[in-house]
């Protein structure tokens, strides 16, 4: 399991290759990449800054990935989340899961990103033509996370 919080961008291909390590048991790899959109809540976004709670963020991400690995028979998982200043089209987050079959890797990957969005202590502040504003938590994200509750 790899969990990283970093300002630097990441290279998806290289990260996925490292996760696979040419392990011949692996028959499926599911990856999700979250990106900065140019529009949010009807306003143009020129940039955003991601703040987090150092220490707790890593612990929470490790706990979420650990939960995913207990629930689904997957072989390994990776989460990289960026912080700091980001621009539209920039990569924000990479979640990737490898396993024997795709059913488990799809489910585990979606569980990790849905749960991360409601539990990992990150906060987005975006800049629009009207000035800076903190992004509000979305009810749709809560619902997406709730459906995974056992």
């Amino acid at each position, binding site marked *: 399991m790899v969990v990283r919080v970093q300002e630097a961008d990441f290279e998806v291909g290289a990260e996925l290759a490292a996760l696979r390590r040419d392990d011949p048991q692996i028959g499926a790899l599911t990856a999700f990449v979250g990106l900065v959109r140019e529009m949010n809540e009807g306003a143009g976004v020129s940039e955003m800054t991601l*703040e987090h709670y150092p220490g707790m963020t890593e612990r929470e991400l490790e706990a979420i990935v650990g939960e995913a690995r207990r629930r689904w028979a997957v072989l390994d998982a990776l989460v990289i989340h960026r912080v700091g200043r980001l621009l539209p089209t920039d990569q924000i987050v990479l979640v990737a899961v490898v396993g024997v079959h795709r059913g488990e890797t799809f489910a585990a990957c979606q569980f990790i990103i849905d749960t991360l969005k409601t539990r*990992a202590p990150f906060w987005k502040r975006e800049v629009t033509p009207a000035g800076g504003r903190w992004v*509000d*938590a979305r009810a749709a994200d809560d619902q997406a996370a709730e459906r995974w509750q056992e």
Partner: protein
Amino acid sequence: MKILYFASLREALGCGGEEVALPAGVADIAGLMAFLAARDEKSQVLRTRRNLRYAVNQEMARLDTPVADGDEVAFFPPVTGG
């Protein structure tokens, strides 16, 4: 104990954290929040802001989660990562 504030709450309070001696009679998050909010006008936000989240020693907590001297307690708005 160490108190931390994040995101919009940090901005509203004008500081990212502070050292506070655990006041007599305060045993849980609810008590700590009430104590912190009562100190001055600006701190009222800890009482008036809806949906605040809290963590004790970097684990999500509830209003009745116990707090003790030496703990790290964080207050923050709902998270918006991903």
